[in-house]
């Protein structure tokens, strides 16, 4: 109830107007949405590419952060970034319990991710990516990331 009320309002707003480079792909229910984002400047790492984001909302959204991951599809790869694992899991304090505030919304997350990509210059995966991707069975919200690096 709580989540759907807020999400329906967000949806109305998203259908009305969106910041540049962000498009709504799918929002058939109040559990999972998909958004596409593009990086707007000409950072060579992300030029001409579109990335798909999957949002999963719990009943207590927006008190609880949504689960946000990049989704690999035939047209959308997983972007290179030292905080993005090759299975699409994102390590960003905004999406963690500590950094999340209920004031954030789908749009503001998209904007934050855009800017996270824009400012990056390293074509890298997080350290230990291979192992993490192979062995991680936890959901993103249950992983405790260490946010040791606020530069990227």
């Amino acid at each position, binding site marked *: 109830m*709580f989540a759907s*009320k*807020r999400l329906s*309002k*967000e949806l109305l707003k998203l259908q009305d107007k969106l910041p540049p480079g962000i498009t709504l792909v799918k929002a058939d229910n109040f559990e999972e949405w998909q958004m596409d984002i593009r990086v707007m400047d000409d950072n060579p790492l992300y030029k001409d590419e579109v990335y798909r984001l999957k949002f999963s909302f719990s009943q*207590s959204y*927006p*008190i*609880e952060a949504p689960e946000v991951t990049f989704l690999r599809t035939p047209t959308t790869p997983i972007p290179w970034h030292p905080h993005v694992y090759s299975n699409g899991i994102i390590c960003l304090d905004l999406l963690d*319990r500590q950094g999340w*505030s*209920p*004031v*954030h919304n789908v749009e503001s997350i998209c904007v934050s991710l855009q800017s996270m990509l824009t400012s990056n210059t390293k074509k890298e995966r997080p350290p230990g990516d291979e192992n993490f991707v192979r062995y991680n069975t936890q959901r993103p919200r249950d992983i405790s990331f260490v946010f040791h690096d606020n530069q990227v």
Partner: protein
Amino acid sequence: MDSDDEFNSSQVSDDDFMEDSDAVLDEDSDFEMEENDVGFESQDKDIKPTKQAYEVDFTVYNPTQIQSHQEKQIDEVSSILGQPPESTAILLRHARWNKERLIDQYMEKTEETLESAGLGQDAVAHPPKIEKIKGFVCDICCDDSPDLDTFAMKCGHRFCSDCYKQYLFTKIKEEGESARIRCPGDGCNRIVDFKSLDLLVSSDLRDRYQELLTRLYVDDKENLRWCPAPNCVYAVQCGVRDKDLPRTVPTVHCDCGHFFCFGCTLNDHQPAPCSLVKKWMKKCEDDSETANWISANTKECPKCHSTIEKNGGCNHMTCRKCRNEFCWMCMGVWSEHGTSWYNCNRFEEKSGSEARDAQAKSRASLERYLHYYNRYANHEQSAKLDKDIYLKTEKKMTQLQNSTGMSWIEVQYLDAASQALQQCRQTLKWTYAFAYYLARNNLTEIFEDNQKDLEMAVENLSEMFEKPTDQLQGLKVDMMDKTSYCNKRRVILLNDTAENLKSGNWEFNTSLA
């Protein structure tokens, strides 16, 4: 020391006992022992003996007492700082209950201290309230109805009160946060104070919040620890600090019946100090089973000491690591075997005997570890069996009451015996871990004598315990004697180790840090 005789005599005389303890204890504690000895009272749990060297002072508190401790401290500091109690509570929690530091900080930089704890100025002048604001849109639920109840703390981040409530509910119920819940606004570090909370949340949530605060209080206080027993609600206060731990083993006894170490909150591990316990457990985790197998099934390459398992084939071994060729039987170099291949009868040769010596040395340390480990594990196992025995004891006690017409109080000796067994085994178990780390000297020998005496006392009592019920009645006096003897041996051993630990007399083959 004629401990054997003592076991077999039905009464342990005071004199025998004195002789024993003379060797171990100094004058003072000897005297104490004598006092306790009179009438064998130590088996009676209600009579507390005077404090032994291995015991520490501690107090057990229930949740109400912990609550009132907090309140007392809040009141005290509140009157010093001139802040209302709820703000003082936040300040104290922010300073992790370090009163002195808080007062110092507050006197020096009042505004900064308040700010860092999430309290701006004039919390006194404007108490928190729920308001209706014209033209307000809640950033959480996006609701903009005109008669919406809203709330904001001093930081001005305003949300509708339903959202605020939901936010607090999630934080308290699901994330277990209490004293450090921040304003829901993005990047706002203001902490939700108790008055605001009071205004917003239901009473059952408030109870949970209070519980979490108490939990945090105990966690923050260095001289308080929760009893780790499942479902136990008590906390124990003890003056032993972390830096004292190499010199003392602070076992405390919670009112729920659980014995635990105040230093590391593990089960009672006297006489071994916490650091040795940690080392020992780590070693056992890594080593014990593997070590057993290695000892039974492998030999070492005489040259590079790689461990080798021979899983078939002849005696001509080539070490895969260093390519050394040797004979599995005599461990000598293969080239000296001449033409007598595959049939080693060269045991006396020099190269072989040297290799065997070196091997023996390296195996000796493994054997030494296994010696202590097996005894440690044995007592652990027996202690588990003791739990079964305890249950059987209860049955036996009822049987005995029915079959012999003995009263409840008359069969309590079985219960006392069972408890003594459990406690002594627990101690014995850790004496083996302790002994593993002891260097060889006279003190260690005395320790091993004490250990042996206790062990024999325990095994004697344990054996008696397994007798059929119909014989138990006749053994009552004997059993009571043995129980009290066990308890006394345990006290002697623990006093000896505790005193020497305190004065730093033990020599360990590892560092206590």
